[in-house]
């Protein structure tokens, strides 16, 4: 493990009955990087995430986070899904401090931090709102703030913008890059959307199904900061062509 790596996955594999969800997979994720994982349904992306998050015990292999082997144990990462999973009975502020509330007493510092990040990233007016009063994009922002304030160095985002319309999704991607730049966290980001994977990441992992495995590990050379013009940059288009080719086996 290189000293710059935050996460190391060694020969992790998982089957459900006779279905191989994830072939033995090894992977190093550099501290502070933004890594996108792209692949069709059933390629084992979510299985990989659930193993890293500690929700699933792999059949074999090890997950190491910084200096600690954390295979099969929870409480080490931030985790966010396409469903915002906000608690309807909690205000925005109380939803952001949810992780603290689930493990210990919520302190005034927790609340102050929740208010600080919420104000900084455009949610300040909504701190006392209940989630049902917010739009889909706003709800995902709250869900991400909740993930962020856990202070875990590694954030697992599983298609967080998958349910949003194209316009909102683009806004959210730029917003996420802004937060990521300030917060200096490591992000693993699952998506179906090839454009999204390139626009956001330093590195793109392409996965294929049956059995689930990583078939390509591509470095994304695009400069940061990125604006929407990047979507038509020749480097972007080349990378996109390569990924589509890998995903669709030559008919793209």
């Amino acid at each position, binding site marked *: 493990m290189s000293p710059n790596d935050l996460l190391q996955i060694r020969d992790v594999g998982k089957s459900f009955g006779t279905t191989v969800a994830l072939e033995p997979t090894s992977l190093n994720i550099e501290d502070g990087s933004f890594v996108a994982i792209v692949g069709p349904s059933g390629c084992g992306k979510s299985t990989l995430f659930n193993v890293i998050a500690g929700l699933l015990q792999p059949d074999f292999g090890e997950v190491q986070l910084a200096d600690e082997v954390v295979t099969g144990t929870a409480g080490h990462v931030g985790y966010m899904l396409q469903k915002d999973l906000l*608690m309807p009975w909690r*205000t925005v502020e109380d939803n952001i401090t949810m992780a603290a509330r689930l493990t210990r007493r919520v302190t005034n510092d927790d609340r102050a931090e929740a208010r600080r990040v919420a104000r900084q990233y455009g949610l300040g007016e909504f701190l006392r709102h209940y989630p049902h009063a917010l739009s889909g994009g706003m709800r995902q922002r709250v869900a991400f703030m909740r993930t962020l304030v856990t202070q875990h160095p590694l954030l697992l985002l599983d298609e967080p913008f998958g349910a949003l319309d194209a316009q909102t999704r683009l806004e959210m991607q730029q917003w996420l890059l802004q937060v990521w730049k300030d917060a200096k966290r490591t992000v693993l980001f699952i998506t179906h959307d090839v454009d999204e994977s390139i626009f956001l990441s330093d590195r793109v992992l392409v996965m294929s199904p049956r059995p689930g495995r990583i078939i390509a590990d591509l470095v994304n050379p695009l400069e940061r900061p990125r604006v929407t013009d990047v979507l038509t940059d020749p480097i972007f288009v080349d990378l996109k062509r390569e990924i589509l080719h890998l995903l669709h086996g030559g008919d793209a």
Partner: protein
Amino acid sequence: MRRTVLRNVGIPLLSIALLLLLWEGIVVVFDVKAYIAPRPLAAIQAVTDNWGLLWPLILGTIRETIYGFFYGSLLGFGFAVIMSKVPFLHRMIYPVLVLSQGVPIIALGAPLVLILGFGVTPKIVIVAWIVFFPVTVNTLAGLSHVDQDLLNLARVYGASRWRTFWQIEIPASTTPLFAGLKIGATYAVTGAIIGELASSSSSGESLALYQQHENSNFSTAGVYGVTMVMTVIGISWFLLAVGTEVLATPWQRRSVARRSWRRRDDTVTDSSKVH
């Protein structure tokens, strides 16, 4: 705000008034004999005239209802929690609970009197017997349908089972829980009256037997009047359950939380802008 209150309180009151007017109209138009059905006002007067006698009995019925409802809903909630957590106990307890509701409640009085005597206890047991079941069934349904992804998220964050239960499973089940409590509340007074019929010894002791006493004295107005009193107790109890739900679940009515009385930090100044 005032319009909603008018709509939510005024219209139901109006329909009750119309119902009483209809009753009055039927009695007058069809010349119904006073020993079959009195005019509504006569029934009400039969209650006010005997208020000194009735009031302690009313208090007795209310007390049976309160205790029975309290123990019944606590028991119902407990059963639901145990069954949702331990599948083995679920399979073992559930059939017994269903069986308990198959027993005709009125037939329960005699054995309960043999075991517990003529006091207030058998009535409380009967109320609890009726109340616990809808609470159990509804709460159990709520607890077993909590979003699995939300429970997984709690696990990822390293939440203990205890905190997950109180912070997620219970609040996520409030709607079915209150549905069960509201059904239980409507049954509770019926249970108390059945309990009084099935396990009282003399006419002075309970509202239900007072009514029977009025009946055998050919005081039709008194019979109707006591029925109205019982109905009012029943409705009040239901409204109390509804009111509790409204107070306990502000997120179902409001977009913005009120300033919490628990917290004194008023640093959230920018929230005032959105009101």
